């Protein structure tokens, strides 16, 4: 077990290093950088001292040095907890992300919870009442959900909110709580706003999960151990939940780490952009557009870490849930 964890940790570290390097390369790929863009802007405005000013910046951020030096400097500082500075905001990336990391994780968790809380019971119902009216309704809904990408749904919801309800669902807080310090009222306010974006981000995943749950359970219900449990005198509900669902749910734990989480991270970012939520997503897209490279690189590394941690957790969860899986 300890061996396994150490190996996974080593693997994760290698991955993060590789990902950070490759992202750095990708971000540096486009010709020019943030400062050349800025220079062009300043010159367009007729600023004569622009060139000197930019050269100063260039020296300050080390952008005049060779690529490898830039990367290693950034990587070494990263380990020390210094992620570089955002050119755009002229503030440390750490501060900017720190403000939003919590919300990003909360939104992802909320999405995950909503997905499972909706999908598992519906999938189970659909399977045990196969071909019934309820099953057909659920199957249809899950099918539509599967083809309903979060950000498009968010746009449609925005339309409904603005045009029909004449109110906005933007943001995670009401006006009076946006900059307020944490308090009980603020938490309640957050929950009031959080469920809409979380639900929107959850729709695609829920649709998929319902279908997978239904399929798995149908397969499991045909297994001899289900009949054996019934022959032992268990109630139907016990047979289904304690024996069939308990087995059918295991493959979902794998999907949780390998497919659901990346979807939630990426999809959540898009939904956040539509609904203007204070998560890392909008910051990241903006930094890509503006070639704000330390910001963009740090965001990718954070997404990757989130994904790797999620994967590890889901593997541990599976090993805990299924005695046939051994971690070594």
């Amino acid at each position, binding site marked *: 077990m300890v061996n396994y964890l150490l190996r996974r940790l080593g693997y994760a570290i290698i991955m993060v290093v590789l990902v950070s390097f490759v992202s750095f390369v990708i971000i540096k790929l486009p010709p020019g950088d943030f400062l050349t863009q800025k220079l062009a802007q300043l010159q367009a405005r007729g600023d004569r001292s622009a060139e000197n000013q930019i050269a100063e910046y260039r020296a300050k951020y080390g952008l005049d040095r060779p690529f490898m030096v830039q990367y290693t400097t950034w990587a070494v500082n990263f380990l020390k907890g210094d992620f570089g500075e955002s050119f755009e905001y002229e503030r440390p990336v750490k501060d900017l992300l720190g403000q939003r990391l919590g919300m990003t994780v909360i939104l992802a968790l909320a999405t995950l919870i909503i997905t499972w809380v909706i999908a598992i019971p519906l999938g189970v119902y659909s399977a045990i009442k196969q071909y019934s009216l309820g099953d057909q309704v659920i199957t249809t809904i899950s099918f539509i959900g599967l083809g309903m990408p979060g950000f498009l749904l968010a746009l449609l919801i925005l339309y409904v909110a603005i045009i029909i309800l004449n109110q906005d669902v933007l943001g995670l807080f009401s006006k009076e709580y946006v900059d307020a310090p944490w308090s009980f009222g603020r938490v309640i306010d957050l929950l009031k706003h959080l469920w809409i974006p979380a639900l929107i981000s959850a729709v695609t995943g829920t649709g998929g999960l319902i279908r997978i749950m239904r399929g798995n359970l149908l397969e499991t219900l045909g297994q*001899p*151990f289900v009949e054996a449990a*019934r*022959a*032992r005198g*268990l109630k139907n509900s016990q047979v289904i939940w304690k024996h069939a669902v308990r*087995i059918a749910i295991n493959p979902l734990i794998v999907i949780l780490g390998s497919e659901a989480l990346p979807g939630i991270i990426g999809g959540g970012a898009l939904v956040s952009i539509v609904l203007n939520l204070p998560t890392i997503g909008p910051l990241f897209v903006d930094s890509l557009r503006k070639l704000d490279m330390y910001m963009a690189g740090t965001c990718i590394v954070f997404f990757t870490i989130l994904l790797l941690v999620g994967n590890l957790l889901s593997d541990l969860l599976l090993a805990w849930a299924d005695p*046939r899986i051994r971690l070594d």
Partner: protein
Amino acid sequence: MNDVLIDVKDLHVEFDVRAGIVKAVDGLDLTIRRGQTVGVIGESGCGKSVTARAILRMVPKPGKVTSGQVMYYRKAKKGKKHLKDEVLDITQLPPDGEIIRQIRGGEIGMIFQEPMSSLTPVYTAGTHINEALSLHRLIPLQKVGDQMAEAITTYRTVTKDEAREIAIDMLRKVGIPKPTERVDSYPHQLSGGQRQRVMIAIALSCEPEMLIADEPTTALDVSIEAQILDVMRDLQRTANMAIMFITHNLGVVAEMAEEMVVMYMGKQVERAKTVDLFYDPKHPYTQALLKSIPKVGKRSNERLATIEGMVPDPFHLPTGCVFHPRCPMFMPGKCDKITPTYKQIGENHWASCLLYEDV
């Protein structure tokens, strides 16, 4: 001797599938007495397993009992939840009701063909036995209310520690080595033979009146098969329970059963003492079945007898006697017109064949 436990009367089970209706069980009569071992044999698909499931009121979808009865002569017994003798028609019980759930596992145990997958993979052997015990086994408390005419005994369900003790004891009885360790083993850590032993332990832990064994050794090696059969025989002797032993293996059933029922296409075609059936089979189908067993000592270049023709299409059953297209004794004009009745043709010997009817 005439202590009937299960009496199946004119049972019909149909499967309504898209291509039509399959009569899986078509007018079956079957009596099982207390402590008796009855072998039910027949080809795959002849309705043996469906009959067993009908007795437990758990015919799988889309199957349905369309008519007939399964009478269960229930007796009050110490340590069981019911308190009086009664006769129940199992086909009329609610399929997920209290009574049938007491019967399943508690009074009629069942073991299955696929020991490899009959245990839920995430639970230990002990957990499985515990589950059955907590449902069915009661421990008597001290007597109360002596002043009343009849002593009322109160019971409680087993505790976890007691269940574990019983589980270990049961595992020992079915011949699992190191039961104190094995009780905590997960199914994937057990061999096929061990899993079937665990299944037997689960079924017998609640001291049922009857055990239904649905091809319990088909999936096992021959040497393991012999061991499992031994275990079952030993336990039956000590527990005095009935066994309904379903198989397509004539050798196995000869070893286990006192009486045998031969089924063909959802109907019983012959019933007799095992010895009689083997030495003096009356029905042409039984005769053909017996001829198809390879025998030691015969000249090896002789071809094994097979039953002519194919099992009929279940959607289009032959008229008259369902066996007539394959029957070597086929009587034209009779067998394809008249449906034979199931009647006694000798001492403890029944058959349904026009050869033994005056028509």
